[in-house]
């Protein structure tokens, strides 16, 4: 279901890590798309391949990892077959990324000003003064007061929340078509998290920007996103509109995830946890990788399971979906 107004459409993306212990199929056939002004959430347990998916889109997977198959369509251009210089022009300028850990993403030896100005100068010819003015204005926009002075500071003088705002400001500098935010708020406390979510939502509406928001926290995604993709062991196991998906999860794994979110369990329903351990990525079972932990699985689940489509944009990969109404 590719849409015409898609900013980004990923088809059959596979990124594997060729480690000494074996091949880690971190991303194994992911397809997703996001439209202008839309916010797409990617959910999934730790290790399900969310970050690797994000890095693959910008060709940032480092050895021993490699993107081995797939298409990343961005404005009619396949990013995966771009040469290094063409993709560099897109990175930061048209697709910006915010990393998982705000404490580690800024260079500790360089001032905030230097790290912001260099991102402007990588894509545009301007004077330093003009660039600095733009940096200060962008910092103000993400809620850093007294920005002109704080630009002179170094990362270690900023709290985690402030650093993440700086990262968001850097992402906004070029008003990109798409921002990929990889769990940018997990390291922050809840109030700041809420604040940043609110601001991001506003900025998207304001600028018509598309946003991919990665998180293992379904509650956060539910509040923020238009659509959600749920990943398990390198695959998207269910995708759909955010409210729908949280209201009526079809895949047993999604159901487990929804059940384990405190805010989401409906009255009378107990807070449940998904039984079993996260999968060993070096040795995934055939067919549905969730099979060993799934209460509904049977022998037939060892087959390769294709994507099934339900009305209203819902897609899932399961032979025993929760399709019965109610409940």
């Amino acid at each position: 279901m590719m849409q015409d107004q898609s900013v980004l459409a990923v088809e059959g993306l596979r990124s594997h890590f060729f480690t000494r212990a074996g091949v880690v199929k971190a991303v194994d056939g992911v397809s997703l798309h996001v439209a202008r002004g839309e916010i797409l959430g990617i959910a999934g347990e730790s290790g399900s391949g969310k970050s690797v998916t994000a890095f693959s889109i910008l060709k940032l997977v480092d050895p021993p990892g490699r993107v081995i198959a797939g298409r990343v369509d961005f404005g009619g251009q396949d990013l995966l077959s771009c040469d290094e210089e063409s993709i560099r022009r897109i990175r930061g300028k048209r697709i910006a990324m915010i990393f998982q850990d705000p404490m580690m993403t800024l260079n500790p030896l360089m001032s905030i000003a230097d790290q912001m100005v260099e991102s402007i100068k990588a894509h545009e010819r301007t004077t330093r003064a003009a660039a600095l003015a733009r940096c200060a204005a962008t910092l103000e926009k993400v809620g850093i007061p007294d920005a002109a002075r704080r630009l002179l500071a170094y990362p270690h003088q900023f709290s985690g929340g402030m650093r993440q705002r700086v990262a968001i400001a850097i992402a906004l500098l070029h008003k990109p078509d798409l921002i990929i935010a990889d769990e940018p708020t997990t390291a922050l406390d809840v109030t700041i998290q809420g604040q940043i979510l609110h601001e991001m939502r506003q900025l998207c509406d304001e600028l018509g920007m598309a946003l991919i928001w990665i998180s293992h926290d379904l509650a956060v995604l539910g509040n923020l996103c238009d659509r959600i993709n749920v990943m398990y062991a390198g695959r998207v196991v269910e995708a759909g509109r955010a409210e729908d998906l949280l209201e009526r999860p079809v895949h047993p794994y999604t159901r487990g995830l929804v059940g384990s979110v405190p805010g989401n369990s409906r009255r009378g329903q107990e807070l449940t946890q998904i039984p079993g351990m996260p999968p060993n990525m070096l040795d995934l079972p055939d067919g549905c990788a969730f099979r060993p932990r799934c209460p509904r699985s049977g022998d037939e689940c060892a087959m390769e399971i294709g994507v099934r489509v339900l009305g209203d944009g819902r897609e899932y990969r399961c032979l025993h979906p929760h399709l019965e109404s109610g409940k």
Partner: protein
Amino acid sequence: MLVFILRRLIQSVVVIFLVSILVFIGVFSIGNPADILIPAEASQMERDAAIKSLGLDKPMYEQYFIFLSNAMKGDLGRSFVFNQPTISLITARMPATLELAFCALFLSLVIGIPLGMIAGYKANSLLDRTIMTGSILGFSAPTFWTAILLIMVFAVGLHWLPPSGRGQLGKILGITTSLATWDGIRHLVLPVTSLSLFKISLVTRLTRSGIRETLPMDFVKYARAKGLRKSRIVFVHVFRNVLIPIVTVVGMELGSLIAFGVVTETIYAWPGTGKLLIDSITRLDRPMIVAWLMITVMLFIVINLVVDLSYSLIDPRIRLQRKKS
């Protein structure tokens, strides 16, 4: 910052004082200079007079206090052998030693850093393996051996370069140096090469491991995600982080280049302080040895201070911490 420097200076004075005591005790235990300096056929009376004039008749602690009070006035004694102030003897030869040390240091950085960066970036490639194998050779070959080998090949065998001595001197920016003349440079090549081989290997390995450690860091990937050009990532983001260990080791090694160029200076008959030290030790020229050691200690202290100051130049965390204290 000023407080920091002041505190370091006070520490230094304490260190110098303690070292002077150790040096004095050490030099006394080597042997009695009277046995060497005074000819065997001298009469007992001549002997006593000589010992008295050298101040060797006084007990050790008294000699030490005389030395200390003179040292406070900037006088580190007179050489027994040359009968000249030790300080002027050493400072006269210092430029030759410094020239050798700084040229070797320069060479080790200019060659070692690029090699290390290539090896680090192309880790486990054929190029990397070649560079690393070469650096093991540079590490394990003893200086005296490479020095002699270089002389055999380039001076004796090929007649390309002079085997020993310091060539013609000239002036650059008011500094007297061999680098000003072609003859001087030709004389420099072999000693500098043999002195720097080990340091080149060291800097290469250090740079390589620094790069290997820095490359997987998040901020490097983030710099790529921002769309920065590769040159900026390599030379600004990665290089700055690699610079810290390099500065540390270079500081330590510069001290050792100056202090322990002895072997190289001896083999190439380089008229520096190292050779002066060896000569002084064989003649038991006590004031000379003491003065040399004291000056070397001070040199180390100054170098360490410079290294510490350059840390705060590179790393804002250290800079700001010092500003506070």
